[in-house]
């Protein structure tokens, strides 16, 4: 009923926009990472022609990720922080998502509304709230002193890895719970009933039916929050600000904003993207598959 050329024309402006302002910028990172450096001013000379690419400085940066080299420690720390924060998020988020899909009954709408409330408060605002609470004279330390269990409460905000990990978990849990909830919601309840009819205890039914069926959901939700966590630099800066807790993102930011070598920063960005590309590919593959199933 519509002319055939109408849809490509509709898609055109958006696609052009994404090519110009999403793909081309990424190419700029590649160009700077594989380009040269001005010998006098040390500023990058990007190479736009792939034939002019010079990989020496990039490989130099890449070798910094070998065990014991420049970036090895920071890479390990980033992985450790993200890993622990992800584990905390799952341990807290899974029961919450599970409860809301299975047992909340009439409370479901209210709980869902409360659950998406953090989405409407900016991330930085939530971090500000976090910092206010954990300040030396803040409520958390006041509470610790009140319990008299702790006489000298810890200094949370100066290079304390615990605060960085908790901050990350606090910041990203909402983004984990919603997709998890959606995937738990899709599990066919009759399968659970069958398991119970056949004599499985509630716990065994959960272990052998719900948990395996939610595996894709868990992986997908984990990827969704692991990606921004790996690229996070503001959370450690806000809750700690110390080089002792800096992550890969902080290293990249320093090369651009503090240090003199944007090309090293570009190389690091490229390495980070390649590393995350694996996670992204996995995620987009599952999304595409789900979409095909939904359309079929």
């Amino acid at each position, binding site marked *: 009923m519509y002319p055939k050329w109408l849809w490509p024309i509709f898609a055109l402006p958006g696609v052009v926009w994404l*090519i110009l302002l999403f793909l081309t910028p990424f190419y700029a*990172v590649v160009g700077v990472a594989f380009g040269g450096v001005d010998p006098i001013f040390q500023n990058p000379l990007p190479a736009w022609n792939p034939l002019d690419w010079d990989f020496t400085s990039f490989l130099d940066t890449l070798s910094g990720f070998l065990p014991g080299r420049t970036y090895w420690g920071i890479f390990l720390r980033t992985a450790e922080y993200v890993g622990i924060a992800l584990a905390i998020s799952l341990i807290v*988020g899974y029961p919450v998502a599970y*409860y809301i899909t299975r047992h909340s009954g009439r409370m479901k709408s209210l*709980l869902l509304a409360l659950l*998406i409330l953090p989405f409407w408060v900016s*991330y930085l605002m939530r971090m500000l709230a976090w910092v206010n609470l954990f300040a030396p004279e803040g409520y958390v330390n006041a509470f610790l002193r009140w319990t008299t269990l702790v006489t000298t409460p810890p200094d949370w905000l100066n290079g304390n890895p615990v605060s960085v990990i908790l901050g990350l978990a606090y910041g990203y849990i909402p983004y984990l719970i919603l997709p998890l909830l959606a995937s738990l919601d899709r599990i066919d309840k009759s399968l659970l009933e069958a398991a119970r009819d056949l004599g499985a205890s509630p716990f065994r039914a959960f272990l052998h039916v719900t948990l395996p069926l939610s595996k894709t959901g868990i992986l997908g939700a984990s990827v969704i929050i692991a990606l921004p966590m790996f690229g996070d630099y503001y959370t450690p800066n806000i809750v700690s600000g110390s080089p002792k807790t800096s992550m890969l993102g902080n290293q990249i930011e320093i090369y651009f904003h503090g240090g003199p070598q944007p090309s090293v920063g570009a190389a690091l960005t490229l390495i980070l993207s390649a590393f995350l590309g694996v996670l992204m590919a996995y995620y987009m593959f599952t999304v595409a598959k789900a979409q095909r199933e939904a359309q079929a």
Partner: protein
Amino acid sequence: MTEIALKARHSAPPTALRRFRDWLANPWGRPRFLVLVTWLYILTSIAPVIIAIQFSFNSGRSVTAWQGFSLSRWYWGDPVDSVWHDPTLQQALFQSLKLAGLDMLVATPLGVILALGLARWRGRLAAPANFLMLFPLVTPELVMGVSLYLVILYLFTFIHPSTLAQMLGHVTFSLSYVVVIVRGRLFSIGRQYEEAAADLGATPWETLRLVLLPLLLPAILSSLMIVFAISIDDFVISQWLSCGAQCDTVPIRIYSATRAAPLPSVNALAAIMVYFTVTALGLTYLVYRFMTRHERPKGGGAAASMMGDIGGM
């Protein structure tokens, strides 16, 4: 465990701890452990924000110790440090709203036609275009920030770091959200209405304007809301494309303030943004409910279907 040991365990006087454990793990009623975790989580996710807003009403200069209530001091009362009188805070507020407005104005129409195009275009390039559209959703903001920064520094040198650059960045990352929301609605309304219109003699243009557009309005409204929220929320892209103090947005101000010695005026600034978003959300909900009043969603009211629109990703 032997019979006797079991008996002994059961006859032991229940301690408070035992009773709490039994209450928590009662196998017959509702799963209280889950109830506890859920409400604790919700409490810890919301309480800090409430406390932060509370401190925007502190009458003293502390953001950690309560010194009495003052409604207006940090909003407009204080002649130097309040949001209204501190030029950096006021400027950040307007910059955030300006960017969000521009973003809504550009990303929503662009995203709507892109969604239509991508959902119905069956050409050979449609699949790669769809794939490209999904990328901004999963790319870490830092990577996007760095690449946009480098591209305006070395390639598109006519766009300097500026409000314009920030706006372009915001549109780039919000576009895909609009597409996902609108496409979800497109699939759920199907094509029968348009086919009916065409059968009744409507031209393609009339079908688009008089049938499809009104049907898409709820999704467009949700998109406007989401674009507003994610633009207000954004820190990374705004920071990388910032032209300095003149381009500071609210998140950037909060960021720099937390690392110095913050005053409650920063809390007030952040709180104002929360008021804005909550009001916008409430208004959107009301309009949405009005628009979809003739639809009978399967289970759940307007809130549920609005969330269905939004939660499409």
